[in-house]
């Protein structure tokens, strides 16, 4: 029998707000343990939560970006379980009235080759809800310490329908969510910092069957490759169990990305009874049209929409677009530069960004926003090249300097004496005549109408000028001499 896998993902995205979700103390990563706390975070007796509107704004914006319906009324529930990372021993979450319903995530599957766009699909969402993050336990040999800095960080949970069938789809889904959330300014989605987390519900069923099989929840998928590898491993494991005549049990399994194995955490019988009930400390939230409209106006173009537009408007190859798009800043940088230098130069600009800019950024280990490069300077560099005032080899040097100092390319060219030369017309005339005289074959071809034969003369002129001859002037001079003297 042939089986297919069915995958649903629960993706947690930490929302980037200044303060925590229910109190004013700051939210952040990498601070000294338990410094981002206050009486509310620590759940001291008598404290109460108060909703942070910025967190609500962010989740509504996320919902709008992903085509969800925004519920006119949503409410808060307590999810109850005892664990030291949860200061109240309940987590404020949304149970049966989440803020966003439905929606979808557009994904792109791997193409036939690196330079070929893959198939696009829509993965349906069930819901998005808002909740609070918990603290972090650090286990030592004889005890465990709790750090509540993370507790109370706004967290949204994006739940997909069980409609994915391969690890590649899940990987593409997670990538697309990350890109969209970064574009929306909602989260930085750094998995290493726990800003993006993913649990997968995986089952298999005979192809043609519509009922879902026994599901396994896979946890601890804490990198993009662990998501792909973990899911692939789990599908294989389930197929093997069934192939061996075994029965799958509903359970939660922990994936070990380093070993590439998983082990059972708890079975269905051990599942928590969370005793959800509406949180009496918080009022339901009413979202009206005006609020939604305000956020809709703040929604950026989605990454895939932008990619389609860049390809059609700027005629850049898919390969370049797929490097630019995941990074909103980088793609904005591209567009700004292309607007300055002219749409016709878009591919050149794309090449400069994809090859040179990314290399420099990587070497300097700085994000684009912190670097000194600007669209104005890159556009100016390309214009110098086009004007023949600069040669390619020199341009690379100008770029590197420009990246390091932020100076305008013209300034650098002048300072370093990199301008294309010679400007001595007499010397150029001599080189041109010598070159024509020495290339009888090219001359014959040119005369017979093959215009590209002129390049043969240019090659030897460049050699003679040690690469400094202005290509534009060379071309003009050659054509004048050929027209006047060899016609």
């Amino acid at each position: 029998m042939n089986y297919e896998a069915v995958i649903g993902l629960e993706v947690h995205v930490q929302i980037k707000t200044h303060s925590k979700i229910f109190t004013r103390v700051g939210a952040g990563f990498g601070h000294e343990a338990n410094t981002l706390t206050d009486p509310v975070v620590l759940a001291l007796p008598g404290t109460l939560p108060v909703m942070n509107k910025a967190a609500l704004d962010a989740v509504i914006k996320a919902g709008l970006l992903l085509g969800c319906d925004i519920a006119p009324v949503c409410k808060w529930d307590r999810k109850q379980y005892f664990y030291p990372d949860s200061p109240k021993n309940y987590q404020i979450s949304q149970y049966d009235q989440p803020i966003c319903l439905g929606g979808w995530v557009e994904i792109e599957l791997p193409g036939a080759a690196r330079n070929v766009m893959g198939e696009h699909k829509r993965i349906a969402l069930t819901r998005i809800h808002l909740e609070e993050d918990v603290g972090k336990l650090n286990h030592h040999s004889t005890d465990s310490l709790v750090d509540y800095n993370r507790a109370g960080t706004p967290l949204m949970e994006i739940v997909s329908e069980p409609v994915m069938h391969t690890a590649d789809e899940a990987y593409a889904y997670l990538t697309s969510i990350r890109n969209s959330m970064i574009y929306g300014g909602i989260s930085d989605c750094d998995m290493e910092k726990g800003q993006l987390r993913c649990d997968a519900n995986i089952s298999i069923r005979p192809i043609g069957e519509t009922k879902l099989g026994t599901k396994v929840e896979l946890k601890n998928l804490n990198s993009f490759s662990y998501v792909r590898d973990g899911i692939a491993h789990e599908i294989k494991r389930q197929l093997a169990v069934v192939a061996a005549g075994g029965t799958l049990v509903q359970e939660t399994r922990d994936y070990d990305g380093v070993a590439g194995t998983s082990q059972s955490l708890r079975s269905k019988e051990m599942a928590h009874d969370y005793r959800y009930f509406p949180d009496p400390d918080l009022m339901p939230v009413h979202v009206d049209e005006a609020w939604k409209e305000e956020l809709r106006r703040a929604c950026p173009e989605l990454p895939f929409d932008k990619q389609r537009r860049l390809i059609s408007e700027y005629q850049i190859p898919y390969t370049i677009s797929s490097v630019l798009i995941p990074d909103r800043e980088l793609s904005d940088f591209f567009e700004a530069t292309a607007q300055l230098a002219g749409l016709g130069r878009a591919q050149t600009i794309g090449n400069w960004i994809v090859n040179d800019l990314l290399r420099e950024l990587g070497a300097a280990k700085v994000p684009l926003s912190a670097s000194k490069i600007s669209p104005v300077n890159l556009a100016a560099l390309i214009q110098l090249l086009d004007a023949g005032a600069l040669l390619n080899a020199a341009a690379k040097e100008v770029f590197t300097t420009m990246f390091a100092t932020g100076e305008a390319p013209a300034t650098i060219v002048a300072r370093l004496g990199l301008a294309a030369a010679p400007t001595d017309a007499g010397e150029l005339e001599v080189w041109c005549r010598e070159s024509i005289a020495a290339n009888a074959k090219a001359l014959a071809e040119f005369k017979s109408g093959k215009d590209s034969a002129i390049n043969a003369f240019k090659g030897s002129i460049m050699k003679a000028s040690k690469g400094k001859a202005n290509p534009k002037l060379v071309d003009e001079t050659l054509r004048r001499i050929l027209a006047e003297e060899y016609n």
Partner: protein
Amino acid sequence: MSAPLHFQSIAELSAKISAGQLSAVELTQSIIARTKAVEPRVHAFNSFDDADALAQAAASDARRKAGQSAGSLDGIPVGLKDVIAVAGQPLTASSKMLATFVSPYDATVTQKLQRAGAVLHGRLNCDEFAMGSSTENSAFGPTSNPWDLTRTPGGSSGGSAAALAAGAAVATLGSDTGGSIRQPAAFCGLVGLKPTYGLISRYGLIAYASSLDQIGPLARTVEDAAIMLGAIAGHDPKDSTSFKSPIPDYRMELKTRRGPWKLGIPKEYFGAGLDSEVGAAVEKAIAFYRSKGCEIREVSLPHTQYCLDTYYIIATAEASSNLARYDGIRYGHRTSAAKDLLDVYQKSRAEGFGDEVKRRIILGTYVLSSGYYDAYYLRAQKVRTLIRQDFLNAYREVDALITPTSPISAFKIGEKSADPLAMYLCDIYTIGVNLAGLPALSLPCGFTQSGLPIGLQLIGQPFREADLLATAYAYEQAHGWNTQFPSL
């Protein structure tokens, strides 16, 4: 011939203070002395910080000297139930769980009282986590009723009532989840006001049942209750359930709102179980209002019979969740006998909580459990809506309701502690008000033959405390039950 200083009202004392006849330090010293004299017999306090109280009093006197008095509460000693946070002071909820806990922050009502210049003194005993009707469920021992030391002062704000009745405070704050201000006020011959849900910030009040809890004053007179309410009422951005509405000058409104009112007698509140002496006193009060031209009408609150069940589902469900934070991890009692994490939880909580608290946590956990939620919690919420609707229907016909506060007067210590259900029945006339979120007030309306105070309950309309207080004031002015004091 006026009463001794420690039995005088805020109105009287603040008049003397502003006339320069009395200093805040003198008054505070007198209250401290009185406290030391009566406390061994009454046990109204969990702790008391003389030096801190005197320092606050001295600051009050300094303000007055500088012409910066904050008003009628400036320099007045006010005691707080030990569930309301004061920075730097113990906050125990009368529980072993929090026996050594000191609050690092102030409740909003604490800050408001401080701004009004009140001298905050003493942490007042109560039933553990405000769960109870007699103050016998305190981990630190029961409080006695100053009118009869063998009897309870009621609960859960029994310390707040007993301290005030004994002259160990000029006014106090309690909290009322099912009658915990009004019933002790009735048992101790005081005025006790449970404000509309949302009028007073709950920030800094240890939560028992969040959708029912409300802080309110206990005072000697209706006017004092109005002064206290004015100081603590108002919207608080730290409490999402606090209401945004203008706060009238309750004290001034007492004299400007003069009725006559249409008063409703809910027939369900005068049935079996009502003590005859209590019933007679309430009937007399009703007759008084009728004689003053008020229209008295019988009304029905048909869902009253479900109040107790509804209350014990909702209150315990919320309590089971609210008390989950007391786990021995971050603060509070932690067992010394734990082998693993589960042990830390189970033993810390088994050792830290008393029987009644455990009973309610277990009950609340049960009603929220998977498979039982719809039958209990969800249904209780629906009934709660019907109960509230009963009251709102009645208010189409009448301005306020008159009932007994408690079916009985103060009972003996130990009399009901072995029978939780009998204890729960003490709240039969008060819990509907909490379920409906309404304001209600208890005021003295006489004494039993054995000399125990009897309380009259007036139930008002949402956010119309000014009318409620004025209705009570009219009765109080014509009677003066509050000029009698226990002989201690």
